[in-house]
């Protein structure tokens, strides 16, 4: 699994929560005074439980995460409204229509978090499921978990 990049900004910004996707063919730039952390690789999905942990500002130091700092180019993530099936926390920021990240991020927001999937069904990571205790994938109806770079039946 591993840690890609540490959340470095002490000021907590909004947590964007709901359903999510990514368009890696388009990009935007993180504004000044703002950073944002993702907890799944591009193309992959997160479980609702991981989403709740992200929203509650759990440290998740042992989970995969990657922080983009101000001025960095990021793919065009998109946030969708929830549908009632998700356990969204009342403190999180939601949307009522599909909204791309360039519309969500503003200057001086502090460190934001993305509590949604970064899903792209055509991406090589589309079968990866990021959960609170590791990374899973489903093969022929069975779950496998990544342990030391190998896939072990869960």
């Amino acid at each position, binding site marked *: 699994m591993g840690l890609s990049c540490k959340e470095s900004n002490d000021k907590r910004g909004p947590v964007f929560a709901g359903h999510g996707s990514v368009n890696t063919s388009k990009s935007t730039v993180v504004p000044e005074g703002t950073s944002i952390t993702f907890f799944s690789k591009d193309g992959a999905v997160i479980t609702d439980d991981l*989403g709740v942990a992200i929203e509650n500002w759990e440290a998740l130091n042992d989970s995969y995460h990657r922080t983009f700092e101000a001025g960095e180019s990021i793919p065009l993530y998109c946030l969708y409204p929830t549908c009632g099936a998700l356990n969204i926390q009342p403190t999180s920021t*939601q949307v009522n229509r599909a909204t791309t990240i360039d519309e969500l991020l503003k200057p001086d927001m502090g460190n934001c978090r993305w509590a949604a999937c970064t899903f792209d069904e055509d991406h090589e990571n589309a079968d990866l499921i990021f959960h609170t205790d590791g990374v899973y994938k489903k093969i022929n109806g069975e779950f496998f978990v990544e342990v030391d770079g190998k896939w072990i039946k869960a």
Partner: protein
Amino acid sequence: MDKSVKFGSTHGGIYIHKNEEIFIPEFVQKQTFITAESEVKVRLVNALIKCYKSGSLVNVRRHIAVSKVSNISEKCIFEWSGEHVSLADAELIMETDPAVYYFKTTLIYNVFKYDYKPAAEFVSNVLGKFS
């Protein structure tokens, strides 16, 4: 602000299915409702949406389910009886007597969009429980 309306029982972690649970595929080629069965199809979609909202959802993930029946992947978002329906990527557990079924939420979209007709016993049990 929390704008969500919480549905029935949900499990947002990794749910490993039990052996006794019967999996119903999300689509089977050439297994579709014919025109004369359109009333049953409408009742089934109504029942499945009710099941989605009030039943047990497991393996809930934070993206919209995607149907891949046609050549183009489609997000499972549609209008039904004047209602906007968007389906999370998840699976549903439906307990009946004596069978317990599980199926992906994409099955609901595929009944709606592609007239998919699942196994007769499953259809009968869904209608019996959620009509």
